[in-house]
């Protein structure tokens, strides 16, 4: 998890996931990777909820007889996961503000300060 975005210090990340479709699309992506790259199997795990600085958000694992195909499949999977899965990332900044990543015209929410 990166700790800066456009000069603003990120305190934590929040991931919102729509699981039914995330799993369905995720499985479809893995099947595509198996077809395209001839790998044995692949697995992807994505966190949801609050993540602290340094936490791992997503892991992709690939089983293959050949390392070349494995790495290409892993690249394909992470690229597709980022583009297609119903998952949204909200950055919470140290100044108390928060912003949904990738949403140009979305109003950034000014969260109530807890402290």
């Amino acid at each position, binding site marked *: 998890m990166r700790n800066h975005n456009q000069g603003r210090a990120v305190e934590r990340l929040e*991931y*919102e*996931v*729509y699981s*039914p*479709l995330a799993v*369905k*699309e995720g499985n479809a992506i893995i099947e595509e990777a198996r077809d395209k790259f001839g790998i044995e199997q692949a697995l992807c795990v*994505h966190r949801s909820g609050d993540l602290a600085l340094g936490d791992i*958000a*997503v892991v992709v694992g690939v089983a293959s007889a050949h390392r070349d195909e494995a790495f290409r499949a892993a690249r394909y999977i*992470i690229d597709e*996961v*980022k*583009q*297609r*899965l*119903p*998952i*949204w*990332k*909200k950055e919470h900044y140290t100044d108390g503000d928060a912003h*949904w*990543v*990738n*949403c*140009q*015209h*979305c*109003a950034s*929410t000014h969260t109530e300060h807890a402290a």
Partner: protein
Amino acid sequence: MKEVHVRFFAAFREAAGVELETVHTSAASAGELFNEMTRKFQGLGHEPAALVAINDEMSGWDTGLQDGDEVLFFPPVAGG
């Protein structure tokens, strides 16, 4: 008129101020329904990379609506 169940996610939910809404609509497509929602909910705006799902299947903005459909409006995704 059809009765459909709309669900907003992430930034759309915050912009609309509501997560779930049952609407009676004459919108013919998911896209038309979203346009209608932007008129109904002042804070909700168009996002070029927004996506839509109907009854837990990824759909297109031109996809037609049926009575009882659950229409999910996704703002631009940002996973990983």
